[in-house]
């Protein structure tokens, strides 16, 4: 197609655009633009009043310049003047300008609102639509104040043309989203709902967007829409592809409307009325059936439209979570898509299955696909798809497959995108704790996390492993041994040093009998990492050292020598210096009894909600819905996990109760605090 303006072609504009395209450099472009801006400025200020066509042309040029990315600080007045032209294209450009370059000057706003008011009351449908568009595009509070009461009237008036009704519905929707307090449906409610029965499909399509939004905020007031929506959906789904004529899209009847109807129904619980419910279930079954039929067209648009409806129907089935038959069928359909040629479908199937995984009716069905999902995690080329697979593994995890899933996620973590590592770490940590039967597996998993993705292991994660090791006698020896081995690695992550320092400080005695991990060996190992660590880690290590002096008197001299050197007691960091000085003094003047009391083994931590879960919820936002549901299901001790033990039982805790000194509280939470 030739590159000239179509229709009323503003030649000057086309020439200007050509000039810009021909500029060889950014500087040349800016020069040309400034020249034009100066020209336009002088024309606007000039003595001669500009005719409509010229004004339109210059305003359009300004718009072009703005959209290129340059600032425009004039032209608003001229654009507003164009609004009162009775030439359509001039009005149109005026409206376009002010919609794009929104100005908060109150005088301009007043003039704009005036022009809109005139066009709205002009009874000329094209002008009315222009005005409604402008309101929808700008959607400012001032516009809402001026027009929110007028638009519902236009929407339901008998003599309003269909095209205007469509625009009015969506305009009202925009205003409702930005200024809900100014849009009072009250007397209009039933008539707006009734638009669902309109004969014009375009009106229904537009109205339903409005109704869906209103229903979300005021479900009771709009609940009559449910049976109307079901009827409408039923008629569409059972229609032949020739029935709906222009609303059929590549042999799929009214796909947008179908999706919107299904979306509207997700604002409500399943219909109470038996007949309505029956009709709806029939609809959903028909949609699921159609997915199995051979396609009517090879074009991707046909399958996209058809599958868009299918996925929305599955969303509704999941939302209801009350028809086991439908849930299982949905799961099977998604299972088929998991192996589809098209990447988009595999992606959507993985995503959709995530939500299915948390329903008790379909959880087991979802689990049967574990091998396919693991395969996706390993082999999909698109990181988006791999991430959906990881999410699904997390969602389908329970006692029966936790070890397998955690192993796969750890292995995935080794090569995962940096942007997703932190979330993966949190998820693995949560699963490992939730499903640990054998806590040595839990300890291994967390230490592996630190080894593989140390940078992304947040404080919540390593505090948690320490809390658990402190609280569980049965894993303390294993933890000490494992951490000792992990520290042997030449380049181990600082988080490993933190965990290792703390655990050896508390439980190093459990492995000190073996000559390979004798007290001095442990000390030297820790101290070899000392100079590589940040201040908080060094502070933690110093605390470990004083604990060693208590546990292993034979190390006293060596450790005191270390504490005594200048780099410790005259360290420029206040915390480190203080610790070194105080620990040195303590080790010299305290008797063994006093030392033993002060540096007694850390008492168990009180049972509390995992902060890791809170962190994940915060991170994921709406996507964490399935996680929360999952947690609730699991907490209720459903068949999924046979009543998980969330932590140490209180009997074990009582046995370990011993008096705490001030000193211990300082180290208690594992946090390095600067105040005592």
């Amino acid at each position, binding site marked *: *197609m030739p*590159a000239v*303006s179509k*229709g*009323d072609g503003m030649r000057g504009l086309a020439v200007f*655009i050509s000039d810009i395209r021909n500029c060889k450099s950014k500087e040349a472009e800016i020069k040309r633009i400034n020249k034009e801006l100066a020209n336009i400025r002088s024309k606007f200020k000039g003595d001669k009043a500009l005719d409509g066509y010229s004004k339109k042309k210059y305003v359009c040029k300004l718009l*072009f310049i703005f*959209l290129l*990315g340059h600032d425009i600080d004039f032209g608003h007045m001229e654009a507003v003047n164009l609004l009162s032209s*009775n*030439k*359509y*294209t001039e009005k149109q*450009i005026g409206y*376009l300008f002010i919609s794009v370059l929104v100005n908060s000057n109150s005088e301009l706003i007043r003039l704009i609102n005036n022009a809109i008011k005139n066009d709205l009351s*002009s*009874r*000329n449908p*094209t*002008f009315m*639509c222009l005005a409604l568009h402008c309101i929808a*595009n700008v*959607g400012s509070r001032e516009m809402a104040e001026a027009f929110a009461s007028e638009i519902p009237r236009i929407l339901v008036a008998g003599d309003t043309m269909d*095209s205007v009704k*469509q*625009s009015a519905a*969506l*305009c009202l*929707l*925009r205003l409702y*989203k930005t200024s809900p307090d100014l849009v009072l449906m009250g007397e209009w409610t039933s008539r707006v709902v009734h638009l669902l029965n309109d004969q014009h*499909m*375009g009106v229904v*399509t*537009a109205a339903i*967007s409005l109704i869906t939004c209103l229903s*979300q905020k005021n479900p009771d007031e709009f609940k009559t829409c449910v049976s109307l929506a079901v009827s409408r959906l039923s008629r569409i789904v059972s229609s032949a592809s020739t029935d709906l004529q*222009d*609303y059929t*899209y590549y042999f799929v009847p*009214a*796909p*947008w*409307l179908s*999706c919107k109807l299904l*979306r509207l129904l997700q604002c409500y619980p399943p219909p109470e009325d038996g007949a309505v419910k029956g009709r709806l279930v029939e609809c959903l079954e028909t949609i699921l059936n159609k997915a199995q039929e051979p396609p009517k067209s090879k074009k991707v*648009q046909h399958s*996209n*439209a058809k599958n*868009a409806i299918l996925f*929305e129907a599955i969303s509704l089935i999941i939302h209801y979570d009350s028809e086991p038959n439908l849930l299982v069928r949905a799961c099977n359909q998604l299972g088929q898509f998991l192996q589809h040629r098209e*990447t*988009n479908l*595999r*992606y*959507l199937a993985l995503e959709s299955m995530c939500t299915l995984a948390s329903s008790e009716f379909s959880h087991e069905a979802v689990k049967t696909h574990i091998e396919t999902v693991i395969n996706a995690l390993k082999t999909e*080329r*698109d990181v*988006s798809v791999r991430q959906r697979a990881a999410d699904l593994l997390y969602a389908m995890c329970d006692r029966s497959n936790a070890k397998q899933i955690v192993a796969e996620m750890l292995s995935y973590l080794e090569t995962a995108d940096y942007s997703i590592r932190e979330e993966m770490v949190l998820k693995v940590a949560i699963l490992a704790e939730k499903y640990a039967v054998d806590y040595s597996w839990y300890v291994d998993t967390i230490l592996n996390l630190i080894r593989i993705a140390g940078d992304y292991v947040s404080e919540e994660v390593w505090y948690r492993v320490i809390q658990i090791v402190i609280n569980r006698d049965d894993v303390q020896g294993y933890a000490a041994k494992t951490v000792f081995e992990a520290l042997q690695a030449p380049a181990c992550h600082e988080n490993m040093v933190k965990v290792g320092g703390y655990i050896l400080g508390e439980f190093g005695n459990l492995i000190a009998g073996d000559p390979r991990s004798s007290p001095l060996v442990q000390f030297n190992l820790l101290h070899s990492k000392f100079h590589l660590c940040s201040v908080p880690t060094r502070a933690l290590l110093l605390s470990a050292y004083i604990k060693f002096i208590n546990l292993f008197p034979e190390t006293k001299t060596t450790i005191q020598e270390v504490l005594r050197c200048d780099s410790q007691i005259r360290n420029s960091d206040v915390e480190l210096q203080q610790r070194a000085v105080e620990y040195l003094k303590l080790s010299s003047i305290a008797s063994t009894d006093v030392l033993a009391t002060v540096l007694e083994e850390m008492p168990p931590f009180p049972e509390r909600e995992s902060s890791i879960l809170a962190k994940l919820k915060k991170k994921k936002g*709406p996507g964490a819905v399935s996680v929360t549901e999952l947690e609730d299901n699991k907490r209720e001790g459903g068949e999924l996990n046979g009543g998980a033990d969330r932590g140490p039982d209180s009997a074990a805790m009582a046995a370990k109760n011993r008096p705490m000194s001030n000193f211990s509280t300082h180290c208690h939470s594992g946090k390095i605090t600067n105040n005592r």
Partner: protein
Amino acid sequence: LKTMRFMLLFSRQGKLRLQKWYTATAERDKKKMVRDLMQIVLARKPKMCSFLEWRDLKIVYKRYASLYFCCAVEEQDNELITLEVIHRFVELLDKYFGSVCELDIIFNFEKAYFILDEFLMGGEIQDTSKKSVLKAIEQSDLLQEVSCIQY
């Protein structure tokens, strides 16, 4: 509240040809978002899926000849139907310009906005009948230089 947040059209060289924003956003934020997003989408390979997560939104995109059509929707939105929204828009442009190409959109940018506005309002589809939308657009063209009769 499910909604389309914005739609962008840009070339392989990273030139923005159309930008429609459906929520109030500061100019400098728009510029940053456009830069970020263009970089991410242009780096995608052909066989990858048409959806990706970006910030708290979902991006649905498709390439037609030299132009990328890119929509940002909310997380819970229906991705496949959004792909077809893009396709319908391309069909409308195609019908209007007759085998549309990037140059048409460059030189008739204001027409591209008008067509988009006839089709989507506030990020929602107004009418899904191709005939109706085209008729509305053509009607506007007919009203060019002619003063309108007062109804």
